[in-house]
C-alpha cells in the first residue's frame, strides 16, 4: 500500500512540470482566449455571448482573403523548402562520410545561432533599394537605377524558406541516414534508374521525415510574423499581422482572439489533410 502510494506520488511529481506547462501556459490562456473570442461588446464594460466576431471574419473579404493567401503561401513555402532540402539532406546523409558530414550538418545550423530578427534585418540590408544587391547590379551595369527587391511576395517566400530550411533538413537527414545503402543498390541492380529508385525506394523510406518536416515547417510559416512583416512591408497581407493589428492597433481583442482560433483550426485542418493524403499517422511521423 505504502509502495503503491509512493510510486504514485513519484509519478505525479515527475509529471507535474509537464502538467503545469500544459495547463498554465497552453490550456488556460487558450480557454480564456476562446471565451474572449465569443463575446461581443454591447456597452462599455458589458459583454454578451455571441458569434459576431466569427461572422465578421466571413463577411469582410479582406480578412478571409488574407487568411486564404496565408494558407496558400505557407503551403507553397513548405513545398519549396522540401524541394530544396531534400537534395541537400540526401547529400549530407548518403553521399558524405565522417567529418565532412558533421561539418555540413553544422553549417545548416549556424544561421540559427543568430536571432531571427537580426537575420531578417540581414536580408533587408541585402535587398533594399540602397542595399548590397541593388548597388552591385548598378555597378555591373545590369540596372540603370536603384532596384527595390523588398516588399514583394517573392521576397517573403525567400525569407520563409530560408527560415524553415533547418526544420526540414534535420528530420530528412535522420530518416535518410537510416536508409540502408544496399536498398538503393538493390533498386539499381534490379533495373531501376535514378528516378524510379527515388520514387519507389528513397521517398517511401523518407516519408515519415518528409511529413514531420513538412508539418513543422508549415506550422512555423503559417504562424510566422517577423519575416512577412519585415520583408513584405506594410502590404504583406499575412494573417498573423492581421491578428497583431486587431490586438495592438485596434485594441479589438475579441476579433483578434477569433482570428487566432481560426488560424489554429486552419493549421489543424491542413495538417490533418496532409497526413491523410500521404497516408501517414501523426504517431508514426513524430515517434
Amino acid at each position: 500500500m505504502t509502495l503503491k502510494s509512493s510510486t504514485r506520488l513519484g509519478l505525479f511529481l515527475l509529471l507535474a512540470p509537464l502538467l503545469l506547462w500544459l495547463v498554465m501556459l497552453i490550456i488556460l490562456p487558450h480557454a480564456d482566449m476562446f471565451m474572449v473570442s465569443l463575446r461581443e461588446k454591447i456597452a462599455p464594460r458589458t459583454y454578451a455571448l455571441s458569434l459576431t466576431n466569427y461572422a465578421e471574419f466571413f463577411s469582410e473579404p479582406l480578412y478571409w482573403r488574407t487568411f486564404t493567401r496565408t494558407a496558400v503561401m505557407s503551403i507553397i513555402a513548405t513545398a519549396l523548402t522540401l524541394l530544396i532540402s531534400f537534395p541537400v539532406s540526401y547529400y549530407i546523409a548518403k553521399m558524405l562520410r565522417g567529418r565532412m558530414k558533421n561539418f555540413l550538418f553544422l553549417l545548416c545550423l549556424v544561421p540559427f545561432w543568430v536571432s531571427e530578427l537580426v537575420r531578417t534585418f540581414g536580408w533587408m540590408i541585402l535587398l533594399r533599394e540602397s542595399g548590397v544587391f541593388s548597388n552591385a547590379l548598378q555597378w555591373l551595369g545590369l540596372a540603370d537605377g536603384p532596384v527595390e527587391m523588398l516588399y514583394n511576395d517573392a521576397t517573403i517566400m525567400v525569407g520563409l524558406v530560408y527560415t524553415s530550411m533547418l526544420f526540414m533538413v534535420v528530420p530528412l537527414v535522420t530518416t535518410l541516414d537510416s536508409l540502408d545503402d544496399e536498398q538503393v543498390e538493390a533498386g539499381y541492380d534490379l533495373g531501376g534508374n535514378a528516378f524510379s529508385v527515388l520514387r519507389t525506394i528513397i521517398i517511401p523510406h523518407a516519408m515519415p521525415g518528409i511529413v514531420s518536416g513538412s508539418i513543422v515547417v508549415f506550422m512555423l510559416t503559417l504562424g510566422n510574423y517577423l519575416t512577412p512583416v519585415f520583408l513584405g512591408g506594410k502590404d504583406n497581407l499575412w494573417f498573423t499581422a492581421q491578428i497583431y493589428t486587431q490586438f495592438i492597433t485596434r485594441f479589438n481583442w475579441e476579433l483578434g482572439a477569433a482570428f487566432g482560433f481560426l488560424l489554429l483550426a486552419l493549421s489543424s485542418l491542413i495538417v490533418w489533410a496532409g497526413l491523410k493524403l500521404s497516408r501517414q499517422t501523426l504517431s508514426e511521423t513524430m515517434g
Partner: protein
Amino acid sequence: MPNNSQNFDLECRNLVRYYGQFAAVDDVSFGVPQGDFFSILGPSGCGKTTILRMMAGFDHPTSGDILIKGKSALNVPPNKRPVNMVFQHLALFPMMTVAENIAYGLVRQGLNKSDIADKVKSALGRIDLPTSGDKNIKQLSGGQKQRVAIARCLVLEPAALLLDEPLGALDLKLRDHMKVELKKMQDQFATTFIYITHDQSEALVMSNHVAVMNAGKFEQIGSPQDLYYNPATAFVAGFVGDSNRWHGTVERADQTGVKVVSSDGVQLLATAAGQKPLSAGTEVDIFVRPESVVLSEDPARLSDMENRIDGELISVLFNGANSRALIRDRATGGELDVALPQTGEFSTLAKGHQVHLGWGLEQAKAFAATSAPSSSEAPA
C-alpha cells in the same frame, strides 16, 4: 584460364582494383561456365566482396576486364547488366509486399501487368510461398526472406546470380538447411550462381567450383574435392578443412618425399606439395588432416606408417559422427587433433590413456613456408 570465353557466362580477365596504394584485388582471372555454382572463399577483407561488386557494376576495376556472356560489361551501368545480386542483408524493400518485391525488376523492364502477375505467381510457387504474395516482408521468417530475395532476382532470368554471403545473418541450423535449399533452387532455376563466403562448409557443400582467395589473389580454383585433397598452397591447406600443422626445415628431399625436422624437434616424412620445389634447408609447413591420422592402442598395427607418435589423450570432443580426440605428443608436448573412427572401438578412451598415432607419407603435405608464416587460424 583459357581465353576462349564462349562457354563462360561470366569471366574476369586480369582484374585489378586498387584503393590508393592497397591492392584489394590483384590480377584475378577466372571464368564461370553456364549453370555452374561457383564460390569464392576467403577470409574477411581478402577482396571477394570487391570482385562481386565489380561484377554487379557498383565498383570499377582499376584494370582488367569483366565479360558477361562474352561481352565486356565495363561500360554497362549496374541497372543494365544482366546479372543480379542477393545482398548480404538481402535488401528486400520493406514498404512493399512480397509480390511487389518480386515484381520490382519486372515492372522496371516495362512488362505488362498480366505477364508480371503470371511470373510472380510462378516464382512464388517455386519458392514454396504460393500464398504469401500479399504478406508484408516483416511477416516472413529469415529463410523465407532469403528465398524471396533470390526469387526477386531470378524472375529477371539473369546471366548469373551474385550472392554476397547471404547466409551470414542466419542461425546455424537455418544456415545448414538453406545450404541444401540454395543448391536445390539453383538446379530448379538452372542459373549460374556466384557465391562469396568466408564459411568453407558453405562453399564445399554447395559449389561445383571454388576459388580460394587470400590477400587479393586467387590461391587455387578447383572442385571442392580438389581443394580438400590436393591443396595447391599452404593457405588453401590451412583454410579449407581442419589440419594439424607443423613448421619445420627440410633435411633431405628426394623422389619419395621430404624429411623434415619440425621446430619442436619431431622428425616427419611428408610429400612435397605446392608449386615451389623443396630442397634441403627450405622452411616448410606440414599439414595433416585429423581423419588421416590413425589411432591405435597397439603400436604394431601402425608399423607400415612412415610417421609414428606416442601420445597421451587429453580429452575426447564427442560430436557424434564428427568426434575428435585431442592428443598430446609425449615427446614434444605438441597437441594433435585426431578424428575418432565410427566403429565405437575407442568409446572407452579416457583422459590420460596412452595411445599411438600414425599417418602415411602421402597424408602429410609439405608446402614451402610463405615469407609471412600463415598463422591464420583455420575457421571451424
